[in-house]
């Protein structure tokens, strides 16, 4: 049975949600709301960080100095996005080390698309265009999420995302208008990243384990299928401009719906990859652990510096 207090708190929380008010860190919130946010926000943060690996793979092999500088700047932005999101998640009362631990032990997930390899330079273009493009559709919607710190992080991130998709498309455009071999590279990269990009929006609404409650709490503002449709509708004309073949033969304008129809996603592949059997799952976590362990000396130096400063302050106070 609920106590009178918690019933009143719940009612107050429900009122704020109903009135489109944001929930702020010091407000009372239901345990499940907090848990749900920690799950979604940390998954988002991990995706920003793990997502640096497939692109980082091409920094040293970018075809020109300009492309290299652009890619470096983009990957650097993603590290920053990870930081904004980890900090926002920490306002819910969980520590950074708990979050990192959950990632490294597989308790927390990240976007399954980053478990695919980047086989050619064209993949860097396809990722910027399609993967960042899909992420932007999702993130624009999340600017209106009910949790204040998450919403503010999304607004900041969306501003910085603006160039990510455009640089990707620019790479694709250059290749698609280049030699037949280059055009084939672009086609191949798009074909491989198309389906995993659609999977980024998650299972169908009817199958999604967390969707109902997340929508009720206004953590999510639009359903997986609605966001996915939005992405397809905006991307098909971009494929036409590139002059590439559609990655899905079933893509067709549906006059009646006012949307593009498209083929069914291979959900078996989706669940396999998300549950650890994708081409690069093992490598991604292994690399994350190695990078984290290699950084231990930095964290140690920071702690030593803090201890020394504290000691100095204590001595001068004495």
């Amino acid at each position, binding site marked *: 049975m609920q106590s009178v207090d918690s019933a009143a708190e719940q009612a107050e929380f429900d009122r704020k949600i109903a009135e489109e008010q944001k929930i702020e860190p010091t407000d009372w919130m239901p345990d499940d709301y907090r848990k749900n946010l920690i799950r979604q926000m940390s998954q988002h943060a991990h995706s920003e960080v793990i997502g640096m690996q497939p692109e980082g793979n091409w920094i040293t092999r970018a075809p020109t100095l300009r492309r290299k*500088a652009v890619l470096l700047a983009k990957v650097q*932005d993603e590290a920053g996005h990870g930081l904004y999101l980890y900090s926002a998640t920490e306002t819910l009362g969980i520590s950074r080390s708990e979050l990192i631990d959950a990632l490294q032990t597989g308790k927390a997930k990240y976007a399954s698309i980053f478990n695919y390899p980047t086989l050619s330079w064209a993949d860097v273009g396809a990722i910027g265009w399609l993967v960042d*493009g899909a992420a932007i559709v999702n993130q624009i919607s999340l600017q209106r999420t009910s949790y204040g710190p998450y919403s503010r992080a999304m607004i900041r991130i969306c501003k910085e995302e603006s*160039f990510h*998709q455009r640089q990707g*498309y620019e790479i694709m455009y250059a290749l698609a208008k280049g030699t037949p071999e280059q055009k084939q590279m672009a086609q191949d990269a798009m074909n491989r990243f198309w389906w995993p990009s659609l999977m980024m929006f998650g299972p169908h609404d009817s199958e999604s384990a967390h969707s109902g409650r997340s929508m009720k709490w206004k953590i999510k503002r639009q359903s997986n299928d609605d966001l996915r449709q939005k992405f397809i509708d905006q991307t098909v004309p971009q494929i036409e*401009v590139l002059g590439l073949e559609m990655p899905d033969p079933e893509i067709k304008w549906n006059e009646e719906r006012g949307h593009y129809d498209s083929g069914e996603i291979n959900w078996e592949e989706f669940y396999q990859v998300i549950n650890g059997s994708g081409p690069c799952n093992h490598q991604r976590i292994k690399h994350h652990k190695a990078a984290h362990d290699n950084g231990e000396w930095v964290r140690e130096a920071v702690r030593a510096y803090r201890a020394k400063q504290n000691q100095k302050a204590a001595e001068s106070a004495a």
Partner: protein
Amino acid sequence: MSQEHLAVYEVFVRSARGLDHKHVGSLHAESPEHALMYARDCYIRRSEGVSIWVVESKNITASQEEDTENFVDPMDDKPYRHATHYVLPDSVNNM
């Protein structure tokens, strides 16, 4: 006791849920709790805010505006970090 011996507090007000706290001014107070009350009395008398932060001014570490040039590099030599740098065909330029 003269005002000068009281600590200075900076006051930040959140005007509506979902927005950042914004600096609105400062005041003198004998404790953080009192600073909060004075801020309430002084700065949000016309429903200007839903939440107040007070921070003792001496606890704020600030950059110096005169140093901005050396301290903050806007990296104007890297125009490719902005969306406008990329020239795309008109029909997809809303990306």
